[in-house]
């Protein structure tokens, strides 16, 4: 049994061995071409600098939006709170690359806002208007897209203790701001770190959105080495460089997570403070503006583009939809089964807990890097034709990348089933199978559904690995969106993008139901 667990885990770790392959089998005629030293001499410094600025900027952005909204929602009562509480997760349904297309289209020099302002002010150019296709544009767009990670985890942490902390802070004679800084933030730090790490890993793994913003990051360097210079070895060396960045964040996330304590409902709810007048207006404004920029505007822009198109439906649309759905459902089901398997194995045998930490690493692997690893690996064993033959390779890639998110959900669910529950059930004379059926399954049901849905949405949105590894006649909604953008047909990508967003809304809404109950 234990052997099977370890073998399965290693199987999901193979792409990393594939990354090491070029060093073991040097077959590239360009090995001596000095790609790396060329990049290092002329561009790599700039890529590293812009990557750092991007991470720093998005880090600050998701912190302000995530923590700010979580604090307001967790601690205060004001008009509209009930809606904001769950609606603030909606931006998660918008893929980062779609957000990028819309953000730029709306705010660029030739876009509606700037054109309107120019004719209103009678100016040739608005020197004060920042260019959306820039590092700062990317930071804004990513922040509004990814802050829900921070919001979700931090809100839970605040709910646990916020009321009591407000009381403590008042006793100590702190102003609300002082109390927030001195008491609340330190208490919520692990939660905030965990959320920020998730968001930043996504930024590091991104290629589609950053290249649309014209920002050159580390990922740009990997693609340049790999595809422009045709030097897979240099690409892998750079990928390993990127991975060290990611690993750093990953370990911060893991160690903060271990300090996280899940909210226990037994404590009773802390009372949120009722806000009136100016303060209520401010709270409403802050949450409202976040929701507007993060979801309402992009969704509105997509619908508007769709109507501009005259609602003509591409003949291939149904293919895209069915391909996306089938591969997402398949991956989601397999990943839940695997997650249950791994989670139970670790529950039975604590010595195996390293296996789950290892699997968690998959999420930190950028899609393009993962694809290079899989390609190299398949090449060594001459199995690369599998890619064209079936969805197998693609589903495998998704599992490597997304299994960890379902695993986390299942583990969290299992953690709520204490060993004493098992013991009591056994005392009542239930067999092992009955315990599983009558105790575990009902208690785990929600975690399993959440786990499956998260993987489902992630797969729907995934782009780089899908582009490189997909079989014949297999365009998904994400691929179609990307291809239409490459062909510079922005209006036509409204339909596939909007579909991704709508399908992504289901799990997000389901999650928000869970949230409203908490």
């Amino acid at each position, binding site marked *: 049994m234990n052997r099977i667990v370890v073998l399965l885990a290693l199987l999901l770790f193979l792409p990393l061995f594939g990354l090491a392959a070029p060093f073991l089998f040097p077959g590239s005629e360009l090995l001596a*071409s000095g790609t790396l030293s*060329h*990049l290092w001499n*002329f*561009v790599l410094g700039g890529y590293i600098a812009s990557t750092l600025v991007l991470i720093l900027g998005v880090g600050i952005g998701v912190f302000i939006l995530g923590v700010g909204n979580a604090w307001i929602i967790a601690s205060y009562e004001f008009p509209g709170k009930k809606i904001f509480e769950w609606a603030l997760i909606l931006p998660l349904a918008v893929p980062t690359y779609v957000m990028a297309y819309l953000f*730029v289209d709306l705010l*660029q*020099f*030739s876009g509606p806002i700037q*054109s309107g302002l120019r004719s209103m002010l009678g100016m*040739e*150019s608005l020197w004060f208007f920042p*260019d959306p*296709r820039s590092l700062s544009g990317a930071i804004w767009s990513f922040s509004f897209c990814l802050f829900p990670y921070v919001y979700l985890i931090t809100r839970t942490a605040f709910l646990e203790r916020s009321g009591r902390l407000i009381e403590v802070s008042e006793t100590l004679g702190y102003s609300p701001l002082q109390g927030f800084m001195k008491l609340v933030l330190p208490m919520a730090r692990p939660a905030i770190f965990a959320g920020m790490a998730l968001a930043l890993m996504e930024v590091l793994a991104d290629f589609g959105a950053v290249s649309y*913003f*014209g920002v*050159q990051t580390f990922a740009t360097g990997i693609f*340049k080495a*790999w*595809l*422009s*210079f*045709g030097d*897979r070895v240099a690409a892998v060396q750079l990928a390993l460089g990127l991975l060290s960045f990611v690993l750093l964040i990953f370990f911060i996330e893991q160690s903060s997570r271990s300090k996280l304590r899940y909210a226990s409902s037994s404590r009773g709810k802390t009372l949120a403070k009722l806000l009136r007048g100016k303060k209520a207006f401010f709270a409403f404004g802050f949450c409202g503006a976040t929701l507007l920029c993060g979801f309402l505007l992009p969704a509105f822009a997509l619908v508007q583009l769709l109507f501009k198109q005259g609602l003509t439906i*591409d*003949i*291939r649309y149904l293919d895209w939809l069915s391909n996306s759905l089938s591969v997402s459902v398949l991956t989601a089901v397999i990943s839940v089964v695997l997650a249950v398997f791994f989670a139970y194995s670790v529950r039975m045998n604590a010595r195996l807990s390293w296996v789950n930490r290892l699997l968690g690493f998959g999420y930190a692997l950028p899609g393009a890097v993962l694809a290079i690893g899989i*390609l*190299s690996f*398949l*090449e060594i064993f*001459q199995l*690369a*034709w*599998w*890619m*064209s*033959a*079936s969805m*197998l390779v693609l589903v495998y890639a998704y599992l490597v990348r997304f299994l960890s998110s379902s695993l986390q959900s299942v583990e969290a669910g299992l953690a709520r089933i204490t060993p004493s529950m098992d013991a009591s059930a056994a005392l009542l004379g239930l067999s092992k199978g009955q315990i599983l059926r009558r105790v575990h399954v009902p208690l785990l049901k929600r975690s399993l559904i959440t786990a499956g849905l998260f993987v489902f949405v992630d797969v729907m949105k995934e782009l780089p690995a899908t*582009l*490189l590894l*997909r*079989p*014949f*006649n*297999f*365009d998904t909604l994400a691929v179609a969106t990307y*291809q*239409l953008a*490459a*062909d*510079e*047909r922005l209006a*036509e990508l409204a339909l596939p993008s909007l579909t991704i967003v709508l399908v992504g809304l289901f799990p997000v809404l389901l999650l928000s139901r869970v949230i409203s109950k908490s």
Partner: protein
Amino acid sequence: MALPLHAQDAKELNLYSARHYQTDEALYSDFTKKTGIKINRIEADDNALAERLKSEGANSPADVILMVDAARLWRAQIDGFFKPIHSKYLESRIPANLRSKPDAEGSTWFGFSTRARLVVYNKAKVNPQDVDTYEKLAEPMNKGKVCTRSGAHPYMLSLIGAMIERRGEAATEEWAKGMVANMARPPRGGDTDQIKAVASGECGVALTNSYYLVRLLRSTKQEDQAIVAKIGFVWPNQKTTGTHINIAGGGVAKNAPHSQAAIQFLEYLASDSAQEYFANGNNEWPVVKSVKIENEGLKMLGPFKAENISVAAIGKNQIAAQRLLDRVGYK
């Protein structure tokens, strides 16, 4: 895991295509209607396809490989992705400078359509005489006016590869330096974005692929017509070396399981109906001279003198082009 891909069943054809044009659907379904051969497709950009072919090696299921860039066609030939073929029909239809040099075994790749890289300028801001060569774009008089897409894009690399062939690496590097100094904004966006930026006045002049311009010229949308009203275009280098053109084309894959169907497909791409489609559907120029162009947009562009530089030369210079751009900070 069955092996349906390698059965020599001529009712199927596996196509690896870097063409990403929605309008190509008609082309493929027309072929299937005519021959009864079903086409299985994978579309990705040139480089990603090349990586995939490299990994698949001898087991690759690909029958036909289509690329949209001269340098990549050459690179694919050097990498041994193509199988040389003899086809009297293709040789008679496609001009010699638009296909690979044949040897005893045949030709490896054939061009099926061409596109040109031309100059678009803002009528209110720029005098067309100041931008009628690629060289002039880099001169000080155009400071703060020039826009292009990223230099790393294959279309740009091929243009620069051709320039290295004409003027040598040192002169081209000087030119690229001048371009960087003249930019109205850092390179970003696609070719349509460059045209829009010229119309809005953000840029005075930009480089674009011809078919994006024709798409706008033919558009019935009001906003597109508003863009067209503000811009003019120039065929660069008409008095000197001619305008840079790029080729979309392809060949039979080295280990094609359905090589007969593959040749049939390539010959179909050179037929009158497919060639007309390239012109009318995707606004490219057909390679077969006798084909009638029924495309108002292409007619508006009129005839022009094209640069005559071998694809092999452009391909060979691609890495040098990318390195030179990195050196001068051309993003």
